[in-house]
């Protein structure tokens, strides 16, 4: 009897790792509300790991989903030279970078020599990551009915620390497009986002760790 029971448990464990499947209605609603939920949060603290040809970029900072503004300390994993660390602030169109030994955002923002440039549409993993972050907030939800009948799907359940999450893939926009992976807790909060950026095989990972202090925009980025 005991053996049979053990077998049963093993079998049920196997079958509890299901294949990706279409969304249920509550799941479609949960996914539809991700960006609106970020918007109501306002500013969120995050960490990010972004694979790039020059090494893995590690960011630690905050993103303001309402005003589409981010501020972070950035370093290149495995490097320790002066040029591998700095502060970065960005919005939907431009980024500013300043060499600085800090790997976290400094407040109040120090007077440093910001180098400002436009965000590139293609070809830069960093620019893709920054653009993605400031586009994660919206003053409205998406259409849950359309998500329900889109190619969006549920991948699996998992945990981040003690928090149970469901992992969803967003809809495919084009055949070529890689999908975003949303890790959502039971309240629909975005806890982690995974994205394929540029030609990198490894996914970029963004962890959202709770609400953050407001971001004060630096003069070079005031439009």
């Amino acid at each position, binding site marked *: 009897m005991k053996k049979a029971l053990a077998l049963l448990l093993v079998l049920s464990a196997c079958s509890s790792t299901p294949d990706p499947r279409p969304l249920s209605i509550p799941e479609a609603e949960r996914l539809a509300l991700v960006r609106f939920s970020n918007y109501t949060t306002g500013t969120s603290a995050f960490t990010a790991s972004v694979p790039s040809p020059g090494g893995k970029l590690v960011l630690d900072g905050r993103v303001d989903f309402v005003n589409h503004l981010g501020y972070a300390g950035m370093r290149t994993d495995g490097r320790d030279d002066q040029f591998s660390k700095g502060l970065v602030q960005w919005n939907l169109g431009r980024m500013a970078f300043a060499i600085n030994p800090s790997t976290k955002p400094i407040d109040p923002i120090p007077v440093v020599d910001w180098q400002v440039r436009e965000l590139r549409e293609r070809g830069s993993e960093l620019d893709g990551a920054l653009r993605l972050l400031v586009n994660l907030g919206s*003053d409205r939800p998406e259409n849950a009915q359309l998500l329900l*009948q*889109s190619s969006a799907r549920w991948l699996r359940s998992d945990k981040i620390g003690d928090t149970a999450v469901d992992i969803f893939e967003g809809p495919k926009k084009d055949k070529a497009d890689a999908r975003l992976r949303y890790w959502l807790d039971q309240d629909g909060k975005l806890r982690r986002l995974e994205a394929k950026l540029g030609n990198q095989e490894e996914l970029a990972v963004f962890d959202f760790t709770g609400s953050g202090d407001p971001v004060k925009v630096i003069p070079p980025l005031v439009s």
Partner: protein
Amino acid sequence: MRAPYTLTALFLVAGCSSAASPKLGGEIAVPAQLGTIQAAVDAAQEGATIVVSPGVYKESVQVRTKGLTIRGTQRGSVIIDGEVKRANGIVVTAPDVSVQNLTVRNHTLNGVLVTGLSENGGMGRGSNGYTKLDPQKFPPVQGFRVSYVTASNNALYGIYAFDAQHGVIEQSYASGSADSGFYVGQCKPCDIVVRGNVAERNAVGYEGTNASGQMYVLGNRFSGNRVGMTSNSDYQEAFVPQEDATFTGNLVSDNAEALSPAQADGAFGLGLGIAGGTRNLVSRNLITGNPGTGVALGSSEDMAPLDNLFDGNVINHNGQDVLYAASKRAPGRNNCFARERCYDGVGDPLPKPSAPRGIPFNQVAAPPLQPEMPKDPLPDKAPNVEKYGVPTEDLFSDRAAVRS
């Protein structure tokens, strides 16, 4: 130690007896007989009427029983309030349901949603679009009627019919929708009449997407939104392209309202927009005072504007009265105004207007007082298009806060 088992047994018995209890017919009073609208809906027989007294109902109502009527006794004070945390006010997935004389507000998706789409959609967007919706798997809801409903401050749509046929949306009011006040999507043939409604302070007043065949938009006031009235073809929904809709006797004016949610694509000051539509009839509308474009007729992806007829409209005092904007990818054909001036081929690009920043949907002003549903029976659902002439600028001005 035995007590928990007894308790469990008790629960089970209670569960069974409640499931087997006879359903209620006739009229069911909320909260006098049952405390929530959902409890009344769940207890109701087919064809029953749920009469709801004034109160703020903090619930999301799922209607799965055929032929129910949910009627408020006072339109403005029977309120289903989503508190900006519940998704939908009323979701109807059963045929022949009526929703009457009440208010739905503050939902994170829709005020009233009528839909045949059930669990596990997962249809996928094909590269060539898709025109087939499996009618076995997702049969459209057959028959619905939404009358004298006020839908305000809902994050997506005020009143939304999706994958539904044979319905009426009438004498209702929508404001503060971050997308459109009224939306009909994905039906063919629709057999749907949208008439005598007011939409203001929405991103878009009325939107029809892939809503084709016996689709009537009649005698509405779509004024004081960012965009008044649109008809689109969209590959995210089944049944592309959109065709055969009738827009008659509507007031589409002064759609340049700053104190409204931003339109998703930044549009502003547009009266009527048709994107990738075929064989639509636009007649006897008053389209005026829209500072961008009165009527914009364009393509949607590879879908061209074809054989659209504009007849007997008054289109004046707009920034530009008519803009033909068919793209090089999908040039149009035989789009005629009064059978005289016809547009073919490629047009001019739609200018990108500068738009004031939007305000969040839940901060849009509350609606003005709306009329109660009369005691008399509602009119026949036949569209009677011929009875709609060109409206005046004061059409339903007593129901509107934004002046035309």
